[in-house]
């Protein structure tokens, strides 16, 4: 089977990294070619690569020649030139994020398709939501992230697709019924590490030197966004003098200047200014060094916008106890491999978990977390799930073709989105094809 894998190959794309882990195994099953938006500094890939500048009719025509197109999509600019292809030519969509609001909006702006998007949002979510989409981020960061959770626009992305691959059961339940094909849950591999650079050792010494021996290092890995609840983490540490005196909180990742200032001000306010750091971007080698030194990790996402957390998997793989909010895909992690805290329980519950870690009551948790990741995450396992999803996608194609044809005919009479008519057609289709 000839398959076009449409994915970013940008060196900075973590999604490219995990997808390439599956590549050797996908190639065993498929006659595979990669189609990627052109970028400066593309990753190497062990398959024919076609870099394209624009998602235009020429690319579409080429993709139509394959038995199946597989689109890799996440809520980042790396996917801006993939989304239009996924919407134009039905294929299998691998969704990395539960919210694709930013991607969809930017794509609509770039392609002058905002009117259609606004109409879609108004119909599916409401007029206020449509106004926000039309005007852009007229909300502060926290409210915008909440908006993204409430208006994820995944429906816009996977509408008409042949099937969807997601990375958690939680995400699968969210998108179930929005694709014409099946939803497959695939276990996401952990991003790989590149080798150490010359200046990594110096950088690591500089950072880790700030944490005296005997003190506890609590880290949270990934972009420093308001939905990472680092402020709650600080509150938890500050609330208990025994923690405040020996716990250092590090946010390991890039931060928007405004977010960084807010967090530093908060740390100062709660008396942790000298124990809180935002590292900014760090190399893989430095990250490894930090995780090796860390005593605990935290992944307190609320709202949850991603379909799976590479960040939490990375921390688990490091063999440290990780505190997560007991919700979304985090709730699916084994109870004996992470520490789950109800989001509503807030700082007191997090402080209690940290005390337990400090008191050594979670001995073995990190090892179990590492074992869980090693046992469940691999390129081959990921590829197997994608191959199975590909077979399901091909099986769904007749239904999709029929749906497109029926929809096109209904549109001739302005009935393509008529609730009553579409409802009846769906009822009949389910009955005819035993889809219920």
């Amino acid at each position, binding site marked *: 089977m000839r398959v076009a894998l449409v994915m970013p190959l940008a060196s900075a794309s973590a999604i490219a990294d995990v997808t390439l882990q599956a590549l050797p195994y996908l190639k065993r099953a498929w006659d595979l070619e990669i189609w990627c938006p052109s970028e400066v500094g593309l990753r190497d890939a062990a398959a024919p690569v076609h870099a394209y500048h624009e998602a235009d009719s020429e690319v579409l025509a080429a993709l139509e020649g394959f038995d199946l197109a597989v689109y890799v999509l996440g809520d980042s600019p790396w996917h801006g030139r993939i989304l239009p292809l996924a919407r134009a030519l039905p294929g299998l969509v691998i969704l990395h994020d539960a919210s694709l609001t930013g991607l969809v909006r930017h794509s609509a702006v770039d392609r002058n398709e905002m009117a259609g998007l606004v109409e879609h949002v108004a119909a599916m979510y409401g007029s206020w939501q449509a106004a926000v989409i039309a005007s852009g981020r007229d909300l502060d960061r926290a409210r915008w992230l909440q908006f993204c959770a409430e208006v994820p626009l995944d429906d816009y992305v996977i509408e008409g697709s042949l099937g969807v691959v997601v990375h958690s059961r939680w995400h699968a339940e969210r998108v179930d019924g929005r694709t014409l094909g099946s939803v497959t849950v695939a276990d996401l591999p952990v991003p790989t590490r590149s080798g150490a650079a010359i200046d990594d050792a110096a950088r690591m010494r500089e950072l880790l030197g700030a944490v005296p021996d005997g003190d506890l290092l609590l880290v949270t890995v990934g972009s420093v966004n308001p939905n990472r609840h680092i402020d709650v983490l600080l509150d938890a540490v500050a609330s208990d003098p025994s923690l405040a005196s020996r716990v250092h909180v590090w946010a390991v990742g890039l931060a928007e200047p405004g977010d960084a200032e807010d967090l530093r001000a908060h740390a100062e306010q709660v008396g942790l200014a000298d124990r809180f750091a935002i590292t900014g971007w760090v190399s893989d080698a430095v990250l490894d060094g930090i995780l090796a030194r860390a005593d605990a990790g935290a992944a307190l996402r609320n709202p949850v916008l991603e379909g799976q957390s590479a960040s939490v998997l990375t921390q688990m793989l490091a063999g440290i106890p990780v505190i997560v909010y007991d919700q979304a895909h985090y709730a699916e992690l084994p109870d004996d491999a992470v520490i789950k805290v109800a989001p509503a329980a807030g700082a007191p519950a997090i402080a209690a978990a940290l005390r337990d870690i400090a008191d050594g009551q979670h001995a073995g948790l990190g090892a179990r977390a590492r074992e869980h990741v090693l046992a469940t995450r691999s390129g081959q396992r990921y590829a197997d799930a994608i191959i199975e999803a590909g077979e399901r996608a091909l099986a769904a194609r007749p239904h999709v073709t029929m749906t497109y044809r029926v929809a096109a*005919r209904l549109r001739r009479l302005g*009935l393509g989105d*008529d*609730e*009553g*008519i579409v409802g*009846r057609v769906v009822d009949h289709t389910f009955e005819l094809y035993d889809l219920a």
Partner: protein
Amino acid sequence: MKILVANNVAPFVRGGAELLADRLILELRKAGHEAELLRLPLGRTPEQMLDAITAAALLDVVNVDRVIGLKFPAYLIPHPNTVIWLVHQLRQVYDPPPVGWGPGTGFSPVATAARRADQAAFTQARRLYAISPMVADRVRRTNGVNATVLMTPPHADQQFRTAPPEDFVVALGRLSAGKRQLLAVQAMRHARPGYRLVVAGAPDSPEALAQIEREIEAAGTGDRVELIPRFVSEDEKLDLLSRCAASVYLPVDEDSYGYVCYEAAMSRKPSITASDSGGTLTLVHHLHTGIVAAPDPESVARAMDDLVLHPEVAREMGQRAEQCAVGLDLSWHRVIRELTR
């Protein structure tokens, strides 16, 4: 041309629209075209009606040069060369109760879909004709589109004749609530003595007939109302029309000009109709070709009295009615020319 005439179908119900479609096919063939009739059911429940709209929308008509659409939902069938000769829309969608569906009846999804589909079909049609000014006016009001009035010729080529008026007024047509023969029967309570009312036509339902029978019994007008509750042959109809003093036809908001009025006019007889009868006013001009009465028994009785008791006036009205009917140019030649150009 290969022409497909699209009409709706209610199994085992046959009325004016069916006769019209059959005759249209015949006339198209006479004019040298190949013509076929396609009939689509509408159904009764909201689900059936939504399915009917969907079925029409999904149809792909092949090997056809032109579609002539007559009734909902058949005129929705998409084709690049459609001419709609609108008999009527789904009036339940557009009219207020009791004709229209009231709120909470479960038909609102049908109404929404029908409006949208109508709009698309009317604007996409190559040409839009309406069978009467009433229908054209309605489609202009409800859908904002202009339809050319192209009135329907009679279904059959009849040999109308005129005989001296006898002592009866005739009420022809299917017995139904919509045709309101009951109102004419009720009027006989108030009519002056000396003439009868002959009500002739097949009942639409047992209840329609029972209502009339109950009224006759209650009013004690059995000796003045002759009821012929069955299908009346063309010969019988022409005979009744030729001998009557006048014809009374009181439908509620009729879409067409009313074949009954046309046939009366061609028999040189005046017609009595009601002010709310709609399309019949095309032929019944008050005190010129007949009498337009208020839709109450007393007014209808007065109108019948006037025409029966003043035969000379009725005769002159009948002559003018015939001129009016002829002036409508209800020829199939014209209809076929318009629908196939």
